[in-house]
Each structure stands twice: as C-alpha cells, then as structure tokens.
C-alpha cells in the first residue's frame, strides 16, 4: 500500500494511522511534537510556533501554541481511540536561526518553545522518549505512525532517526 505523507504546516495538527506518515518541512525555531499510541497505532503531529497561549489571550488559534496545542492534540488522539496512559512523545526543532543579540524576542524563541513543550508534556503525564532540539540548523521531520520513528533531515548533517 502507498504511504501517504500528510504535511503539517505552521500552527497545524494532524492525526494519522498506518501506513500514512506525518511530516513537517523546514522547522526552524518551531517545534514538531509527535505523539503516538504504539498499541492502537495512532500518531499525531503538531507544528508549534510559540510557547504559550497565556501570553496572548483568546482570539488566537490554539494549535499555534505549545500549551494549548499539545493538550488539544492529546484530546483528539483519545477521541480517535488512543489510551492516554500509552501515549509517548518525541520532539524536534527549536533551533536558533539568527545569532541575534540576546534581548531580541526572536533570539530565544526556539529555546522557549522547547521548554514549554517539555513542561506541557510533563503536566499531561506523557513520557518524552526522545528529542533532537536546539542548535542552529533547520530540520525536516517525518513521523512514521507504524513504528513511532521520527526521521530528521537537515541540509548538511547526516539524517537521523530518534
């Protein structure tokens, strides 16, 4: 059967079942959080732009933010038939693309995104089993829902799977 790869763009989330894959192309300071249920074979991916909806208040799309977005993804996955206790997470992204002075808001956005994803997963009781975050390179990620493997491509470094 053909594997379809569903692209998850900025501030989007999607859920898939095997043999389909989920991917996010060109993550910079954004973070891709992949959550899967290895028994029910359900996987979800969210492309986070900002750390917290609390900084901005209502009127914003919830999937833009780590705290509200990850919570919504977990809810959707439970509705789709996953069991919360079986959910595992992996994440990649959160790079610093421009070496700006430290008082600029975008200098630390990647780091703050990663931190907020980690805190949100912990508060939801979802184990973070692997991550590839930080650095200065953009990443493209492919999430294999069947195996839970997260394949990470950068422009110059060798591909890796976490």
């Amino acid at each position, binding site marked *: 059967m053909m594997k379809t790869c569903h692209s998850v763009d900025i501030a989007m989330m999607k859920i898939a079942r095997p043999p389909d894959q989920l991917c996010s192309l060109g993550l910079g300071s954004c973070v891709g959080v992949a959550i899967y249920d290895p028994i029910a074979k359900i996987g979800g991916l969210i492309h986070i732009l900002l750390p917290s909806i609390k900084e901005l208040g209502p009127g914003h799309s919830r999937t833009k933010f780590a705290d509200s977005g990850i919570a919504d993804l977990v809810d959707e996955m439970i509705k789709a038939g996953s069991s919360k206790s079986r959910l595992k997470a992996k994440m990649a992204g959160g790079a610093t693309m421009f*070496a700006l002075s430290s008082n600029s808001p975008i200098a630390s956005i990647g780091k703050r995104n990663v931190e907020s994803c980690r805190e949100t997963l912990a508060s939801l009781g979802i184990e973070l089993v692997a991550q590839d975050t930080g650095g200065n390179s953009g990443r493209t990620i492919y999430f294999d829902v069947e195996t839970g493997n997260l394949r990470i491509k950068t422009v110059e470094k060798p591909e890796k799977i976490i």
Partner: protein
Amino acid sequence: MTDTSANIEDIRNDALSEINNIGAGNAATAMSAFLGQPIRQSIPKVFRVPLSDMANALGGAEKVVVAGLIEMSSDVSGFLVVIQDISQADRIVEIVTGAAPANTDKLSISRYSDFEVSLLSETVNIICGSYITAISTFTGLKIGASIPYLCVDMIGSVVSATAAEIGKTGDFALIFESELYNADERVSGKLILIPDQESCNSIMASIGVI
C-alpha cells in the same frame, strides 16, 4: 465586508504599493552603486499571505536560501527579512570579488568566507535600508535598524523564527516582491516585512488610514 472596510483595504494596499515602489527604487540605485553596474527593478508587487502559506509563497519550505534579517526599532518595531536564492547570492559575490564563493560544495553559511558573508550582509543592509528610508519618508515615522544577520538554510526554518513574531500579533505577513536585475539576470529576491501589530497601526495611522 462593508464598503467602508473595502475602501480602507484599497487605501492600505495603495499605500503599501507606494512604499514598495519607493523602497525598490532606492534599492536599485544603491545596488547599482555597490555592484558598479546598472540595476533596474521589476514592477514591484506586494502581497499579504497567511502565516501557514508563507514558506510556500517564498518557493517551498525545504528550498535552501540565503536569508538576511534586520530588526527595526524606535517608532516601528519588527523585522525585515531579505530572501535570496543561493545562485543569486553566489552571483553577487562573483560580481564584487570576480570569483566564485569559497566553498560551493557547502549549503550552509560556511559556503561563504568571512569577507563574502560581510559582503552579502552589506547587500541586506542596502536593501533593508532602502525600504526603511521609504517607510520613514512615507509615514514620517522614525525607524532604527540593527546590524544585518545572515543565515543559509531551508526557507521554512528561516522564516519560522520571524513567523513567531507575526504569530503573536496577526496571522499574516507582508511580502514585498521587488526583483532587481542587472543587464541580463536577477540579482535580488524577495523582502518580507514583519512589523508587529502596534507598528502596523502606527504606519497606517501616519498615512491617514486609521
């Protein structure tokens, strides 16, 4: 949409097109001086794209580009990002130094020597400076600019850091497309203007739209 808001939208687009015209004109003149050859501009276009479409509008998330960024401060705060194809950036290096870049096998910032990085940063300075002058002249607002920062990576990843800034305020970015050409080729690409919401309001207020 009511008639009134449609009108405001028209005036806003006219104002933005005018800023784009002046900015691209300034940039063409300054780049001519820098490169020592006549530079002409294409008819500039300005468009507003949703955040999630930004990478696609700029040529696809995984395309590797040379991106320059300048942070604006004072009356207008936000970012200006200049996106250039690798081939265009290479060409600028060739025009100025007479030789190809240091490491053409690399697709990262190490493709360029320190000197070439500062040369490409200078083109970012020139292009952004031209637009900042245009916005400033048009609106009467005072705009400060940071030094230029350069990065070579996938387009999706270079725009996402700045998209985060837009994400805080609205869901759209402004893309000024004004291509600069010498006798036979394109030497410069697209400019993304990312003012924060407050600055957008100041710009619009100063040209009498709100």
